[in-house]
């Protein structure tokens, strides 16, 4: 790095010098663990490439090495990873929306109107949350189809397939509970139609329906109930299952083999 320095003679040299100084500082070095390409003294060696994965909590989801065919984009299309990424996008945009939303009638509807008109980037973030949710249903479903067509559910991955099916159902539930929250005509009647189907369940159909919507029909109480399900309960459950899902991908031998 020192050979690039210009001893402060030019502006560019001064900037490079400062940047080098920062990169060599103790603070910078303490943030990026050994092997990180962010470090000043990093060299591109197999050992350091391994450290990038082993020493970083974000990359810790991955093994140090994967089979070469596994990194081909056409093999997985990144669908599982994109589902997870969309979950993160939805979490971030969802937290933003929570700042401006109260799950009561009629305030919920007014909050959405305000979000669309008064809040900076409110409409954009709400759009991202809504379309992102639809997209996540789609990517999770396509991920399942991809896994099926690759036969990637075969031993020893049977159980992870079941976890995946549970995650698909949870994704649908997440989306469905969020559907009610705008508290407009679309939300109210779509959820009415959806929950009416549940009430046809034999023997305990009425009880399920009662517990789900907090009464014999959808009321403002349902709004609070579904809000809690949507922002707390289901994310908590889905995170647990995701942890198991990712862990089992690693434990069951990584990504499945080529066709």
């Amino acid at each position: 790095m020192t050979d690039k320095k210009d001893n402060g003679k030019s502006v560019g040299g001064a900037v490079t010098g400062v940047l080098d100084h920062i990169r060599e500082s103790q603070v910078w070095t303490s943030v990026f663990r050994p092997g990180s390409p962010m470090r000043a003294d990093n060299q591109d060696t197999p050992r350091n490439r391994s450290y990038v994965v082993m020493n970083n909590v974000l990359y810790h989801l991955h093994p140090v090495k994967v089979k070469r065919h596994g990194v081909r984009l056409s093999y997985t299309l990144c669908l599982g990873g994109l589902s997870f990424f969309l979950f993160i996008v939805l979490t971030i945009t969802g937290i933003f929306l929570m700042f401006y939303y109260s799950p009561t009638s009629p305030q919920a509807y007014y909050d959405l109107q305000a979000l669309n008109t008064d809040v900076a980037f409110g409409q954009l973030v709400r759009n991202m949350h809504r379309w992102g949710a639809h997209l996540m249903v789609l990517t999770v479903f396509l991920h399942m189809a991809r896994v099926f067509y690759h036969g990637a559910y075969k031993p020893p991955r049977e159980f992870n397939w079941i976890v995946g099916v549970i995650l698909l159902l949870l994704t649908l539930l997440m989306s469905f509970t969020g559907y009610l929250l705008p508290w407009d005509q679309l939300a109210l009647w779509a959820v009415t139609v959806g929950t009416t189907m549940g009430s046809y369940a034999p023997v305990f159909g009425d009880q399920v329906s009662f517990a789900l919507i907090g009464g014999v029909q959808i009321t403002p109480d349902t709004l609070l109930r579904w809000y809690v399900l949507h922002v707390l309960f289901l994310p908590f459950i889905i995170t647990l299952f995701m942890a198991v899902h990712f862990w089992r991908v690693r434990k069951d031998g990584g990504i499945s083999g080529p066709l």
Partner: protein
Amino acid sequence: MAQIPDNILKRSAEARAKKEGRPVDEILAEMKGEAPSSDSSPSGGGGSGEAADGGGQTSTASVSGADVGGGGQAPTAPEPGSKTTSASAVSGAALLTAVAAARKMPESLVERSAKARSRTAGGSVDDVLLEWAKEEGVDISTLPAASDSSPAPDSSPAADGGGQTSTAPEPSSDSVAPVAASAATATAVAVLDDDVVIEDDAVVEGEPGGNGATSDRLLTVIRAGEVQRIRSAPTDRVTVWPHLLAIEFVALLVVLTLLITLSIFLDAPLLEFANFNEQPNPSKAPWYFLGLQELLAYFDPQIAGIIIPTFGAIAIAIIPYIDKNPSVKPSHRKLAIMIFTFFIMAAAVLTIFGSFFRGPGFNFTFPWEDGIFFDDLKSLLE
């Protein structure tokens, strides 16, 4: 070496070429050249020593070993003394230093491997060292001459040819293989390119000059790497950083860009305030439930709303326990793919039907005649 696929061989050749700054072709030829050479490889003076026993020239492998052992000077094995003299020409210590320097290894390791080699294959430590020195291209003439370091008695197994019983170090057939294996481990640590000769004692009866005595014959030559090779076939693997993470990052950016662009140009729907007394016509569930709602038009609610989705979810979940076919090749699992594709297509068709072909009263409609009744995309349709 034999089971390594070509592509992996090529990749490691490329890696070595990159590291040593030599052309790939040269390295590849070198690596490939190693494999066939294993049967006539320079397995040390010891091999030639054993070769000279009993019947002598009966075993071709032994003869070829003697060729190498004699460094081309002694084409026929029983030429006593030729090796011994050259071995004693330089001092063992100087030889050790030279070999260690040439191989860039600590002297202690070289000495240990040489001892293991001499114990396994016969021959003195100095013979082995001399052999290695030749392999490494060390100019022996520059080394200081030996004063009295010629280990006379055991340094010349090659000399006892001509029908005499071999003085193999470990004549017991039980102990030979383990010794060879442990020697292989010892040498493998330090000398990756070395071979180990495994021999078996066989009673050669009626062989000329054999006297019914125990004799050694060459069973196999084991490449050092093969002894500790892992059983599973080598797979072509790449580091996650940067190969996988770069792809994932790009995929992430593409999707994020798509999502933001979509969100800029397409607003999420917000209809009128929720009114319990005014049901819109038609009222549709979220799009991912519209396949089920479509089924409601054909079946009893108990069947369409409960039985089909419940059994559908269970059926999907237990696929791995029904499908016992171990193959993942599409051509081997046509039935499974057919069934799955049928249900996926059915679900897709039902969902599209429910979304775009159902109008007021959930009656059938053509979207190009009466318009689309799909409020999720209301802002797009208006």
